[in-house]
Each structure stands twice: as C-alpha cells, then as structure tokens.
C-alpha cells in the first residue's frame, strides 16, 4: 500500500480487506442437548491446554418477587457449602488444581463460570466440585448469615457511591413495579427478611435443567465436551421452564429526579426503556448508538461533552442487551457546578441525533468499526466463551457469528434512522441527577414526585429502600 495515500485511503482499504479475513476466522458452533435436555453450545479451541465452561440459569433478580436480593444471595451462597463440604473444602478443592470459579448474578441470569486446565487430573476434581455446588448447595445457616452481612456491606458501599445511587434510582423510575425496577443487590429491609427457606425454594425452582444452558470453549474433542457438559449439569433436577414476566410499560412522560450527595461530581443518567436483545431492530439501534455514544472518544457524545468542552472524563450511551426491553441510557459525570451545562449538551446531542440521524460517512465509519473489530471480539477463549454464553442464553441462531457482519452491512442509513425514531422518544426521558456537593438526605428525595409507570397487573411488587 503506498504510504502517501494511507491516511486518506485507510478507511476505504479497510472495507476491502474485511470479508475474506474475518469470515475465515469465525468458528463454527457445535450444539446438542444433554440427556436431561440442557442445550450445550461448544467451540473447540485446541491451542492452549485449558477449558472455559459457563452455565447460565434463568435465575436472575427478575425472579426476586417481594424479596429483592434473593437471587443474588442464592448465587453467592453456592460456593459456601455443598452436601457435606464446607466453604473451606470447596475452596481448597478448586485452588489445589488451579481452577477458577466465578459466580455472578444479574437481572436476567445467574452465571457460573469455570476455568480449568484440561488434563483430567485437574479438570475432574474441579468439575465434580462445581456439579455438586449447583446440585446440592447446603445453604448452611452460618453461611447465609455471613453472606447476608456481606451484601449489607455492599449496600452501604452503594450508598456512598453517587454512580450506584443514580443507577438504582434510574431503574426504579424507569420500571416502577416491573421486576427490572428491583435492585439486584436488594434492599436493607428485604435482605434482613430473607429466610433460609426462601433461598432453598429459589434454588429448587430456578437452578434446574429446564432453566439452564451451557457454553464450553476449550481444548476438547466433541466426546470429551459431551462428557464435561454431562458431568457439570447432568445431575440437576428437571424442574419447569419459568416464563419471562411480561414486558414493562413504557414511560409516557419526562421526569427529572434530583438526589443530593456530598460528592464533588454530579452523576447524570438520561434514558428510557429501549428494546430486548432479540428485538429485530437491535442491530440498527446498536449501529446508530455507535455513532451517538457507543464508540469511545469518536462518538458524538464524547466529542461534544469531552473533546469540545472538557466537561467530563466519560460520556457514553448504550442499549442494555437484556431479555425483556432493557434501558437505553446516557451516562456522564461532571464537576457539580457544570452539571446543568453538561445535561443541556447531552440533551441537545440526543435530540439532534434523533431528528437528523447520522450522516452517511459517519455511519459508514461506525459500521467499519463494528465489522472490522468483530475478529477482536472473538480473539481468545475468554472472549469466545463470553460470546457463546450470550448466544446460548438468548437462544440466538447458531449461525449468529457468521451472519453478524453481513447483517451489519445490510443496514441502510434510512433503516438506522427509522429504527432510532421508532424507539427513542426524546420527549419521554427519565433524568436522574445525583450529587451537588450537598448533604445526602436520609431518604432518597426527589424534586418532583415520581409519576412513573404503574406495575402491570400480576407482576411482583418489589419493596423500595
């Protein structure tokens, strides 16, 4: 490539390079069901003698009902005792073979991930351990009490963090009584009231083969991967597939919530309910959002707020990829006395983007970043396992990876703009503003009374803090 033209033609050249190189790199997904009917997603990766396995349960805080924090407490307790093994024994069994166990609990899912060397002398003890803690966690009373206290400390940490306060208030205003409005970390009152029986009941209902999927990436032949899946989740009770709650009603008016906090910065969240991960418009919105605020310093929000005005370190926007319609969110933080200015810039940027859409060259560059960077998202077992877990949990098609770039390339400017205008409603925004350098109030106060959505009939009513 001639040197003198690269700055100008680099972008163009990039497009031509894409198709061949990246298509070759996309691995094929193998898919089957275990004897107890759990979908398995598998990508062999033979270069390193290790394996990553992710078990994802439909066991997130969406099922907390009247007990916010129940799903997270249940997940956190898995590694704290199983059968006659104490937490010490479980930790010892994993550490002495160099295995790494991760447990996370979110709104939609509970995810248990295991990374191990693939040699059966290490893998087998690790797998036995994980299988047992999924199947027969003991939820010993002393462990329940200890983890409850840890979660209460976690809530205190959230109370000192303006970002966490803003996020909780934002979800509550957006979703009201819908399960997404309930904080996954729970509330002080709720955590104190959760009983061991609640936890056992939650485990019995949601940690079942009917609610599980598994994703495996690693140095295994297909039969060994089948064995691994079976060993990890073959012993789970069958259970019943638990349906999703109905989607949340959209917020129909704008609302601004101000919460004083003694921080030096004001945290600002602006947004509304967006779409689900499986919405047909998801790709077009993702592409549009890459222009607005999803592509680092290059995006319009960063340009307007950080690069042109120096108002914030970070300013971005995102669509949460959740099972039910998740939030569309703009997030920034700025020195207290600049909060109004930064808010105005963010609002104007969103309004203009929604009205006018992206320009053609800007959309193309965003598209090139997404498609040209796709190989980066799959480089390494860890990233592959993450992508595979997403495909498994949302039930995306097996050719999802192969179709990703063609799908992105097929979206026209008009489609991106139309999808944006269908879903983003600048006159119906929830704005949460936390900070100001003023003392916090004992109860989270709002300058305007919440006029948010009412709960759909039949959905659980979470308690607020």
């Amino acid at each position, binding site marked *: *490539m001639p*040197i003198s033209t*690269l*700055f100008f033609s680099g*972008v163009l050249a*990039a497009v031509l*390079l894409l198709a061949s*190189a*990246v298509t*070759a*790199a996309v691995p094929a997904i193998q898919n089957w069901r275990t004897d107890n009917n759990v979908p398995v997603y598998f990508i062999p990766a033979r*270069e*390193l*003698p290790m394996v990553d396995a992710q078990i994802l349960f439909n066991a997130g805080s969406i099922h907390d009902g009247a007990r916010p924090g129940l799903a997270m407490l249940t997940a956190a307790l898995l*590694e704290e005792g199983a059968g006659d093994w104490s937490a*010490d024994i*479980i*930790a*010892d069994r994993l*550490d*002495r073979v*160099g295995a*790494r166990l991760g447990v996370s609990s979110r709104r939609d899912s509970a995810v248990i991930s295991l*990374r191990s*060397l693939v*040699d059966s002398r*290490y893998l087998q003890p690790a797998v036995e351990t994980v299988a047992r803690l999924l199947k027969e966690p003991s939820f010993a009373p002393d462990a329940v009490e200890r983890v409850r*206290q840890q979660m*209460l400390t976690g809530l205190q*940490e959230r109370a*000192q*963090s*303006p970002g966490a306060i803003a996020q909780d208030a934002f979800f509550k205003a957006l979703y009201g009584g819908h399960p997404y409005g309930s904080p996954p970390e729970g509330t002080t009152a709720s955590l104190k009231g959760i009983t061991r029986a609640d936890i056992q009941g939650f485990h019995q209902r949601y940690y079942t083969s009917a609610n599980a999927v598994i994703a495996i990436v690693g140095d295994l032949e297909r039969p060994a991967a089948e064995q691994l899946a079976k060993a990890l989740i073959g012993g789970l009770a069958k259970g019943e597939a638990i349906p999703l709650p109905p989607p949340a009603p959209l917020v129909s008016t704008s609302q601004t919530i101000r919460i004083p906090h*003694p*921080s*030096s*910065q004001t945290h600002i969240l602006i947004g509304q309910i967006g779409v689900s991960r499986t919405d047909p418009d998801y790709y077009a919105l993702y592409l549009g959002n890459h222009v607005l605020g999803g*592509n*680092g*310093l290059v995006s319009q929000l960063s340009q307007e707020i950080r690069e042109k005005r*120096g*108002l*914030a*370190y970070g300013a971005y926007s995102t669509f949460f990829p959740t099972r039910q319609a998740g939030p569309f969110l703009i997030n920034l*933080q*700025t*020195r207290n006395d600049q909060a109004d200015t930064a808010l105005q810039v963010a609002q104007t940027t969103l309004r203009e983007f929604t009205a006018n859409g992206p320009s053609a060259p800007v959309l193309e*560059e965003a598209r*090139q*970043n997404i498609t*040209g*960077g796709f*190989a*980066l998202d799959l*480089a*390494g077992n*860890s990233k592959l396992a993450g992508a595979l877990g997403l495909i498994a949990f949302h039930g995306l098609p097996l050719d999802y990876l192969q179709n990703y770039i063609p799908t992105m390339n097929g979206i026209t400017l008009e489609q991106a703009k139309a999808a944006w205008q269908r879903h983003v409603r600048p006159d119906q925004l929830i704005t949460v503003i936390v900070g100001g*350098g003023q*003392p*916090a109030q004992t109860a989270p106060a709002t300058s305007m009374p919440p006029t948010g959505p009412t709960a759909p009939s039949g959905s659980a009513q979470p308690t607020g803090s």
Partner: protein
Amino acid sequence: MPNRRIVIAALWLTLAPTSFAATPIHEFTLANGLKVLVREDHRAPVVVSQIWYKVGSSYEPTGLTGISHLLEHLMFKGTPAVPGGEFSRLIAANGGDENAFTSRDYTAYFQTLEKDRLEISFRLEADRMRHLLLRPEDVAKEAQVVAEERRLRTEDQPDALTQEQFNAAAYMTSPYRHPIIGWMQDIQAITIDDLKRWYQQWYAPNNATLVVVGDVDPAKVRALADQYFGPLAPSTLNPPRPAAEIPQRGERRIVVKTPAEVPFVTLGYKAPTLKTADEEWEPYALDVLDGILDGGGSSRLSRNLVRGSQVAAAAGTGYSLTSRLEELFVLVGNPAPGRSSADLEQALRAEVARLREEPIGADELARVVAQVVAGEVYQQDSMFYQGMRMGSLETIGLGWRKLDDYVQRIQAVTPEQVRTVARKYLTDDRLTVATLEPLPLDGRRPTAPGAAVDHAIR
C-alpha cells in the same frame, strides 16, 4: 489424607508447562535504539501493538505530579500530519480498539486491530512519538478532563482517597508517594512548556519498546518497524534522578476522614522487588507469601478473616515483584458490620505475625504453586496480557525474559524462605497504617472535604 492428595496434585502440576510448546518471540533493535519484541500468536487473525515509554509518575518531581498522565491524554490531540481527533477516528474506522495507560514506571499506548492493519498503528504511533503539536487550548481542556477523571476515580471514592494518602504517608522520599494521576493543584498548574519539555525528554525511540503480539509474520513486522520508526531521530537521554526511599524508622499511622458508609483499613510494609532485592529469591518468596494470604478462596484471609472470625467483609493483599523501586506489601480490608477498623487491623497483623512465627504448611504451598502453574497457562489466552508482561518487564529494566522461569522460581521457594522474608520485611518498624474514618453522608458536619476540594481547584 487430604495432605497426601495435595502433594500428588502438586507433582502433576510441575509437569504441566512442558505439555505445550513455547511461543516464539523475536527481538531486534533499530539503529535509533528502538527495541522491538514480536510474539507470534496465530489463534485469531488479530494483532495487538503496544508502544512503551520509560516514563511514569515515579519520574516526576514534586510540583509536576501527573504530568506523564496528562501528556498521555494530550498524545491524542494531533500532529501536523494527523490533526486532533484523527488518530482515534482512523483507528476506529479501521475496526480498531485503542487506548493508553500511565503507571508509576511506564506510559504505554496500544491498538488492537485485524492482523492486516498493523501498518496504520505503526504509522500513527511513529508520527506522534516525535511530532506532537501540544496546543494551549488542548492543554487547558484536557487538564479539565483529567480533573474530572481524578474526581471520578479518587475524590469521590473513599477507599481510593484513603489509599492515595496512605501512599503519601508511607513513602517520604520515593516518588511512589505521588498519585499517578497527580495532585489536583499540579494538574491545574502544569504549563504547556512543562509538557513540551517532558515530551522532548522522554518520547524518543531510544526510550521506547515496541511490542507486537498476534497473527503476524515477524519479518514483515520488522520491515514495517524499519519503515515507520526507523527514520525517527534518537534523543540524548538523562537517567531519572535517584529516588530511593530513606529507611523507615518506626511505625506510621494516618486517619482519613471523608463522607462514607463503610470503614476501610490499609497496611503496608516496605518490601523489596526484583530490581531492589539483596537476594533474588526474596521477591519470589514474598510473592508466595502473597498467595498464602490472598490466593483464591482457600487462602488465609478468606478462610480466617472473612469466613472464620468474620472480622472482615472483604480483605486482600497486594504486592508487585516487578516494580522499579522499593515497594509496599499491602494488606487491605473492610470490617464486617459490627466490627471496627481496629478489630480488622489487629486481625491482619495477627496473620502477619503468624507468618513470622510458623513456617507455612506444605499443602498451602502446593496450592499456591498449583495456582501459579495454571495461571501461567491461562494468561496465554490474552494477547494483551502477553504484551503487557513483555513490555512492562523491558521498560522497568528487568528485561522481557525475566519471568520466563517464573514457575520454576516459585516452585523453588521453601516454607523457611517465606518465614525468613516475613521476619525480615513484615516488621512493625517498616509498617504504615491508614484508616478511613467515615463522616456522615447526610452532612451533620457543615463542609464535606469533597466540596472543599471542588472549590479549591476553581
């Protein structure tokens, strides 16, 4: 019986590293002094390119703290050939991922790209190594951005604020007392001339290491490096001023008061690194000690303080054997509800005392070794981390091969050596303790420190 099984497991693990082939690494140096390291990793059609400069906050004099980090931000603001914003736009439009980071001992810039696009990275990095514009309006704006970053990451984070003041108390003459991001007053006062001098002084091919990891042909990388970095002129480098810490003569304590809910305590003992140790085995023994206290859920802090006595809601340790200057072996924790910072401090000190008194168990040592051996396999999954390791070792002056025998070094550590380093370094006279004393968030006190800082910087 459990002990027996553990010993056998450890034996197996010693065999693991030979079961996969070492990845070839190629090293060469350009005529202008730029060192280039290329590690082939053909698992995915991707390349990571990192350029490492031997400068960071530990090179900064008082009054100029944060200048390395501020300059790192300004490196994205343009050259005569590539105007402001173009660098990031071009990398993004090429499907790339980019960023930069500043540490105490280095400043590094990186791009991750599809493998055929390495050229754009070299072209842009070579250009900004010698031709940065540094315009007054950019400096003023970026100082504001960095001030916001400091508010976000330090001022409004009670634990981070405590940790920052802890460092300033533990070190008296070592530049490790400076925060990497800089004190707020310095961020606001650094001038464009300061920045120009800093850039001239440190941004040169003979003060840098280029690290490339990925699906590349080393010969082609070499040709590209010659083409783009080869023409750059080297600088006359002055070594950083001596920056040793004066010997500590007794325990130090500080209290940090800020609006918060959860107390926090941090303890640090002056400890040697591979660069500063009398005996080379000592940092490895400290690394094992680190694993004994905080390596996985079976480690002593989890077992004894979080689960056993339940004095801690969370506890951990920190030690880096590859720092350029003398380090701190750090223990941190948040007390559990109903327990005080004093209770937690006492429990942490009791764990340290036990390490001075009793040799660690063979089973514990085997667990640490098992985790290190497995960790060496896992870390090969990340091309970025592979680059980090080579780049940081080279930049610190240890040479990128320094940790090639890491597993063997860890395996060679004995329980007696762990006790020896505990007795020599983890002593009260080498200790600094900082405690976060939460002030009420609802402001029963009239002025919060966060607000005061905010006015001070105007």
